[in-house]
């Protein structure tokens, strides 16, 4: 045990495996049946809405909560009985949880002191960690004197200074404004590449998840719905929920029958075929085309008529809402150079190539679809 959790100065992340992890509070189940196999050095994001069980899972890995059933393995060794302070995992908390009675340096040195390191080593490593997050010049500051972004960096330095094999992050960028968030996302990715630690990253922000992760585990209602690379989740969601949660989408709930997809008396050509039964057709806003009512529509396209309800110019893209009456309301995104010649109130044709839609098995009433008024 001591060996697998020892110092990680050679830059080696640990393999982590969750097997059938469950956590319940009395009758309430927080997470259940969580299985996750993470390779050394992988960046895995636990993505889901609040209350979906992603933070509970992270806390079980960290040891702040005990799994009711199942086990967590690090490099194939079970760690369920190991108390949090012996797990040697770095953690960055939501709102950072920096110690207000210590300076920046004292915060970063804290985990090294707890490991009884020599004074000189502590000073060196603290310095190096602060340099790594570009705060080398602020070591003597009090925490209250730092901006949100700086506090975030201190929290990160404190979590990696003892070279853990595993880094846990709980919505670390949640409290920052958009621009700073994007900047730090980039730095985080860079840092991950340099120190090679295994990362578990919790967020409810799908864009952040897509930008950072090697793989994403999508949580809902205490279960993992799907695990995959960002691209796989985007291109092949296995449930309406994942389809909706990853990227923008228009979801048409309906059913497959005899090779055709049917929703509210309208037939569609679906892409790769599936068996009969309830299904949801997913079309990304960027893959829909809008033409004037008298315009040409390429052969083989699905087409429905509607009215351009509203449009907004956003710079490099134009966002449209097309109201197709009984067939639903669709979000459309046009790229610059391919703007259609349409104006609000125009009668339009909405069309797309069947290959640009994705057929997902099942219908999920809890997920917004084109028939919801929006």
């Amino acid at each position, binding site marked *: 045990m001591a060996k697998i959790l020892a110092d990680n100065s050679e830059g080696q992340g640990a393999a982590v495996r969750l097997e059938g992890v469950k956590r319940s509070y009395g009758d309430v189940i927080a997470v259940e049946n969580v299985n996750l196999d993470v390779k050394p050095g992988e960046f895995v994001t636990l993505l889901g809405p609040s209350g979906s069980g992603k933070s509970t899972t992270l806390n079980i890995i960290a040891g*702040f909560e005990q799994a009711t059933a199942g086990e967590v393995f690090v490099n194939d060794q079970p760690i369920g009985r190991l108390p949090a*302070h012996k797990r040697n995992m770095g953690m960055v908390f939501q709102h950072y*949880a920096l110690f207000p*009675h210590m300076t920046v340096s004292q915060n970063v040195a804290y985990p090294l002191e707890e*490991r009884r390191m020599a004074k000189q080593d502590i000073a060196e490593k603290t310095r190096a960690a602060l340099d790594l997050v570009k705060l080398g010049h602020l070591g003597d500051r009090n925490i*209250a004197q730092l901006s949100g972004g700086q506090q975030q960096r201190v929290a990160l330095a*404190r*979590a990696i200074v*003892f070279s853990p094999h595993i880094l846990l992050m709980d919505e670390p960028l949640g409290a920052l404004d958009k621009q700073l968030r994007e900047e730090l996302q980039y730095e985080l990715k860079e840092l991950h590449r340099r120190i090679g630690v295994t990362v578990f990253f919790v967020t409810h922000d799908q864009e952040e998840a897509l930008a950072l992760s090697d793989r994403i585990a999508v949580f809902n209602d205490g279960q993992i719905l799907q695990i995959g690379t960002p691209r796989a989740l985007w291109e092949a969601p296995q449930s309406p929920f994942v389809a909706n949660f990853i990227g923008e989408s228009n979801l048409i709930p309906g059913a497959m029958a005899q090779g055709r997809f049917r929703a509210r008396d309208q037939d569609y050509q679906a892409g790769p075929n599936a068996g009969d039964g309830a299904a949801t057709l997913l079309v990304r806003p960027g893959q829909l085309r809008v033409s004037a009512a008298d315009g040409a529509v390429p052969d083989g396209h699905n087409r429905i008529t509607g009215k351009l309800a509203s449009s907004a110019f956003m710079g490099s893209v134009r966002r449209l809402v097309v109201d197709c009456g009984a067939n639903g309301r669709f979000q459309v995104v046009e790229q610059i150079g391919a703007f259609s010649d349409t104006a609000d109130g125009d009668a339009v044709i909405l069309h797309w190539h069947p290959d640009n839609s994705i057929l997902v098995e099942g219908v999920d009433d809890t997920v917004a679809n084109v028939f919801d008024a929006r």
Partner: protein
Amino acid sequence: MKSPNMWKLAVIPALLFLMVVVILPLGNTIWTSFAKPELGLGNYVEFFARDAYVRILVRTILTALLVTVACLLIAFPYAYLMTLVGARWRLVMVGAILIPFWTSAVVRTFAWMVLLQPSGLVNQALGLFGLGPYYLTGNLIGVLLAMTQVMLPLMILPLFSALASIDRKLLVAANGLGSPPLRAFRRVILPLTVPGIVAGSVIVFVSSLGFYLIPQLLGSPRQQLLSQLIVDEVSVRLNFGIGSAMAVVLFLATALILLSARKFGGSTETFGSTNVLSPRGAETLSGRRPVALVIFSGIVGMILVGPAMVLIPLSFTNEASFVFPPESYSLRWYANFFSSRDWIEALTNSLKIAGLVTVCATVLGVLASFGIVRSRSRFGRWAQGIILVPRIVPTVIVAVAVYAVFLVWGFTATTTGFVMAHTALAVPFVVVIVSAAVKTLDPRLEIAAQSLGSSPLRGFCRVTLPLIWPSVASGALLAFITSFDEVIISLFLQGPFLRTLPVLMFSSIQDRIDPTIAVASTLILALASILIILNLVFRKDGQNIS
């Protein structure tokens, strides 16, 4: 992460302690009032049937009422000026309020005796206008004066808090809508201050009902107040039955007022949200400096601070009397103090008891604070209610109750008895201060410490304790001072071989009065000041961090 249920255990020591030392004796007092000398309502019937007793009850209520009105009239302008001045002057004004708060009750009362004596400073001042000399002690005048001074802070703080939270643009708005300044003040500011007025009045009135020391030393035996009567019945005449009945009546009056005030909507704990440190004061409507207000408040400030200060030069007098200012100075009374076995013994006893109380009350109080805040249960709130009882029940009642039980248990005239009783009074202070600090503590910091390699206990020591340390220190200081200054319970518990400093002062004042008492007072003032300054330094360090 410790479960909330574990935290409940932390409340239990303090809870058990207060149950045994306060709640059980109070229950016993209620029982005694019905059961001694014989079962029934006899004691109550006797109390209300005797004219002398009823007159004392009425006098007590009238006195409390007068003190409340006087406090309100004096405190309002003072509190209002506090909202007009800048941060520095506001701090001075707060300091003036806190000094009588921190001055030992015996010292304060003794100071008034010196000031109000026929040849005292007040009569000298009146003499300049060709008035007097008047008898200002031995009747209700001195009692009212001294009580008003002590109660002023309790009135000023809630009033200031209410006034400070009022948006002064409302005044401008009312003015713009056609009200002349004074009318705008009456129609806007005054109504919005009502919660503060209610809170202040209730707390002053209730506290005034229970006063013992001031009427005993400054008043007349023929104009007794209820607390004096209770003490006489129990400790002099040993009529536990009727004494207990009187205590119950006093308690019921107190509880009734507190409860009805709560219904009325006035909270007794409105202060706390006030920002005493906001750099600039509000503008007056006319834009002029409120000169009259400044003069008035200056006089109030002198009344608040002045009396105790008189004792310091007096302790260096060469005379055997309290002539002020002294005609010549010497250290003879200091020599007298330090060569007297009685005084030194009393001082040592006080220090020993207060030291023990500080340790006990701080340990019990800090544990209980964590238990109350972290258990987040109904049990926690219920326990808090029990622990705060000694702050709500007038001390005279606690004293009578504790005395009766301690007599049976053989705790009177023992250090153990003193420490137990004083700890019971001190624990609530520690709990109020420390639990406020624990409440603001971010529980994730302890979790963070664990993720960084600290065991739960070590994380608590390295992260949690340093963060609440300033509050623990304040709580400990308050516990020390509570015990060191305590008179009423100590008067009951004292024995010929165990007297505390305030008790000895109290009896010296009553029989052989000489300036040694001024020396004792000065020493007490000095000790309290040192402790408070140390605490302020602590606090300042704490604030720099957070």
